[in-house]
């Protein structure tokens, strides 16, 4: 089931081919900034094929992290208006191709300890060039 943030999580122009793999721009599916320690990518599949989450990279605030590092990053905040970037290393795709993305991202809002906020977004996205176009 979609929630209010499903459409925000994956933008229509968020899938990009980048050196070394694919990149997906994502937005925080919540109304306030949260530390990365409460952000978890639960599942990601491309065209029905699961991508192991341990292979994912996560970029925010000009820094790169491995997905497995997020739980310890209590002091690194995802500002509510900013895009983060999920990196999928080794997955190639040509600009202009369509791919089905299915992403579930869980948040554990740290002031509501009982709540797991699961947001799932499924979209068919066209692969865009990296920002600034291909050189």
């Amino acid at each position, binding site marked *: *089931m979609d929630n209010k943030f499903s459409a925000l999580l994956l933008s229509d122009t968020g899938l990009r081919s980048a050196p070394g793999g694919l990149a997906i721009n994502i937005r925080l599916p919540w109304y306030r900034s949260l530390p990365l320690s409460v952000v978890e990518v639960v599942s990601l599949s491309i065209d029905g094929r699961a991508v192991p989450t341990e292979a994912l990279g996560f970029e925010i605030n000009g820094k790169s992290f491995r997905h497995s590092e997020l739980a310890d990053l209590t002091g690194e905040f995802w500002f509510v208006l900013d895009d983060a970037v999920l990196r999928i290393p080794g997955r190639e795709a040509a600009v202009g191709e369509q791919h089905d993305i299915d992403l579930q991202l869980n948040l554990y809002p740290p002031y509501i300890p009982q709540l797991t906020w699961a947001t799932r977004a499924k979209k068919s996205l066209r692969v865009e060039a990296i920002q600034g176009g291909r050189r």
Partner: protein
Amino acid sequence: MTAPARQRPLFQLGTTLFSFTNEYLHREYNLEQLIARVAELKLGPGLELIGFSHVRGFPTVSDEFAAQFRGWMDHYQLQPSCLAVNADVAIRRGTLMNDEQAAAYFEPQIRAAAKLGFPVVRTQLVANPKVLELLLPLAERLQIKMGPELHAPWSLEAPVVVAYRELYERLKSPWLGFIPDFGSSARTLPPDYLHYLLHQGMPRNLLDTAVGIWGGPGDVQSKREEFHRRAAAAQADPTVISALSVMFAILSPQDPKAWLSIMPQVIHVHAKFYGFDASGSESAIPYEQLLPVFVEGKYQGYMSAEWEGHMYSQASGFEAVQKLHALARRVLAPYTTAAA
């Protein structure tokens, strides 16, 4: 002999920028544009922000941002009413901060409130009363009132609230108070919200189960446990359980008159609302009963219109807040005109 004049309202209306979550997250309005629109539509004079939503880098506040924000308040003739701060006690998943850690986490947020000119900070019940006791010397020094939001699902008799009332009785400090949220004085669940959940694919039997538990007897904890037991038995999808858990956390029933028992300690109010019926009344929260309670109780602070319909609607928060202010003016009219 003439009848005594009715008590006039001593409180002022205002708005929290949380009401404009749709406009803000979709990057249609930046912070200054939200503030300017609040002023233009006369949705003040009180202005409330959420530190972690509206201030980049919060709780760090640069001198430049503080000067800019104070300049906006002057220029747009708004009054900073309350800064919402957060008790992120579970910042490390699966563990909770102790009281000293929680106080240390709040400290820079309270300093940020003072730097921006807010007289009140909204804390959260998930932090123990001891946390505010530890922060009291700082609040006194900065002249900032602190108080937890009394939010659904908790009633005034819930143990977490009673613990605060006992602390306040002991400390008797003017810097400690409460912030009622009218979501904890709900009459029912908003019909628009239930329609939305069904439209999103919520199984009708699970929704009926949850609504039945919500309106039924029992305390919050037993209702939550019963809901989770039945959702697990139905093998509900995690996104469905998320949506229904939130429903229990945002609205709960309580007699509007209950607020009288803490009225002298009320330092700010969240006039939470979702939608309106054809006559302009709120569809789930009884403003016709609630507002007179705050007039008669001689409440003297700000009341922030807080639209949370954006949880399920893409509609304009500005139109929603305009309707709430119109409803409030209608309900308060008999009190503002001099009685014979």
